[in-house]
């Protein structure tokens, strides 16, 4: 199959509905978009506009009712669940608003977790480099419950970066952080993505964040209204 390599992500006519009959809500309504490799794209929209659903579909966390998502040319929903999970771990890094750290594991263990899931070798040097870069070099042994919000999110970012995925998806990563920490976290994500040549797609409602993106896509009622 031939693929256009410059487009890391292609969404084709994606549909996802919730509920039935009268109560049916089209969270994603025939959305199509293309995202270029190496760019920082912000997806903005009011809450309930379907942007989170869209991001979940892009990341293969949920299956759509219709339409396709291609990541590096691969139709991810053609994969069986197991293969999809494997593909997701290899190609996509996730950063969520509520961090999703494992409370019983320390910072280091949380970061190397995705490597362990695929039986990949943990290179000490790589982990240390990421830790220094995100400013958590002295917190490697700390448990998540003693970390501040910013530190937790930085751990989550490191976890998303450690597998060097081609695509990083972030759903309101700074929703729970104060504005200065927010600035720090976004700057960090942006520069990491630039350094490692990754592609970042971030959902946000913050104008200042959107300004830092290379491209802003606005979603209203499950549709792309502004690009």
């Amino acid at each position, binding site marked *: 199959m031939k693929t256009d390599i410059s487009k890391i992500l292609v969404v084709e006519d994606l549909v996802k509905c919730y509920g039935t009959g009268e109560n049916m809500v089209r969270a994603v309504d025939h959305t199509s978009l293309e995202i270029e490799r190496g760019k920082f794209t912000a997806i903005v929209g009011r809450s309930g506009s379907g942007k989170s659903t869209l991001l979940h579909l892009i990341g293969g966390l949920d299956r759509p009712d219709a339409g396709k998502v291609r990541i590096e040319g691969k139709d991810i929903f053609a994969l069986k669940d197991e293969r999809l999970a494997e593909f997701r771990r290899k190609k996509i890094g996730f950063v969520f608003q509520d961090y999703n750290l494992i409370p019983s594991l320390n910072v280091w263990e949380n970061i190397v977790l995705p490597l362990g899931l695929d039986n990949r070798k943990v290179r000490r040097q790589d982990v240390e480099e990421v830790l220094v870069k995100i400013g958590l070099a002295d917190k490697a042994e700390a448990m998540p419950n003693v970390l501040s919000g910013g530190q937790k999110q*930085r751990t989550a970012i490191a976890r998303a970066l450690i597998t060097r995925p081609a695509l990083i998806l972030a759903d309101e990563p700074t929703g729970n952080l104060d504005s200065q920490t927010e600035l720090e976290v976004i700057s960090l994500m942006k520069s990491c993505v630039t350094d490692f040549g990754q592609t970042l797609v971030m959902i946000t409602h913050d104008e200042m964040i*959107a300004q*830092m993106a290379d491209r802003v896509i606005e979603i209203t009622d499950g549709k792309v209204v502004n690009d």
Partner: protein
Amino acid sequence: MERERNKKIRKYFAGYLVFLILFSFFMYILAGYETEINRQRILLLMTEHPELEAEIIAAWERPGRLPFGRNEAGSRKELLESSRMAELIEEKYGYDIGHLISERTWLGFWGAGVCIGTVWAVILGCLEQKRSAGDRDKLRKVYECLGQFREGKFEGIPESESDTEDCPEEWMKIWESLRELGVYFEGLKERLKEEENSTKALITDISHQLKTPLASLRMCHELAVGEQQTEEERKEFREQEEKEIEKLESLLKELVNLSRLETHMIQLKPGTGSIKKTITAAVSQIYMKAKEKDIRLQADIAEDQEICHDARWTEEALVNVFDNAVKYSGEHTVVTVRVKPLVTYVMIEIEDEGIGIGKDELQKIYQRFYRGKDASKMSEEGAGVGLYLTRMILERQGGSISAKQKRGNGTVFRITLPRAQFSH
């Protein structure tokens, strides 16, 4: 292909023949050795028991058959007898006569060995054939892929997963590397194209930017040298001309900086230095302008930070922001700069009480040659290069810039710069 295959088959056949000969030779030697030993034993037996010579010789001469047997019909009985005889001899002399009969079985051994060898060779041959066919297939694909690369097409890398479902890891790695190579080349190609396009756009934009001030300069000049004007008017136009030249000069300076940075003729060279020093240098550049409008410059720098940045260009970037703050603020206002250390970044906040930036314009202010609607009304000066340059300088150092409309009047610019640079 076909010739190569024949060659391989021939090689296989030759190998098999060698095996056959070696095996036969080995068997022959072994059989000969065994016979020799048996002969020696019989001789020994005969010297020890000369009274049994006749029986022993009979047994020797007709191994496998009954020494005394005559016809086929009685063979079963004779066989029994013979084995009894053998047992007898064994019992009597402690010697196993079975060995004497064993000569015949060598042939069987040899046959079995050859058979097994044949089967083994065929199986191995088939397996090899199949594997090499698969490998050849994959190699051909790799070759096709490389051919495409040579032609400048980098998109046609086969799907790694579907093509290599049950493929050894080495092949997977080759596919992955090919894919990465394709992505890399495609990226290079894209960047080249982008660079070319942006250079074209830059040239167009710059010539466009230069046209207007040049036209007004020409107009002033023509009026100044005109004959109808009075001496006083001429003097006025000369002054105007002077101003236009100054404007053109500053525009030119901006454009030169822009084009040099844009085309990577200037590389930023970050080095460790005091951010306070850089900010002070930037502020001193706009100090006079601020004083003219009675704008108070206020600094709130808790502690100086030694960060890794290119001092000269970061200063340039900051000057653009300060310059905007002063240019688009009314008289008797305050421009404040704050420096706050974050964990891995330093945040520089520049706040003014000026006209502010509309919400719909916040996204556009970093575009090259974009000028805000209110800004154009307020000041003729400026080509819409400043913030574009600022953003480029900051981002190349791993930093960022974003603006926010303040409650009431004014704008807050937030700049981040990493404390330490990482090289990858």
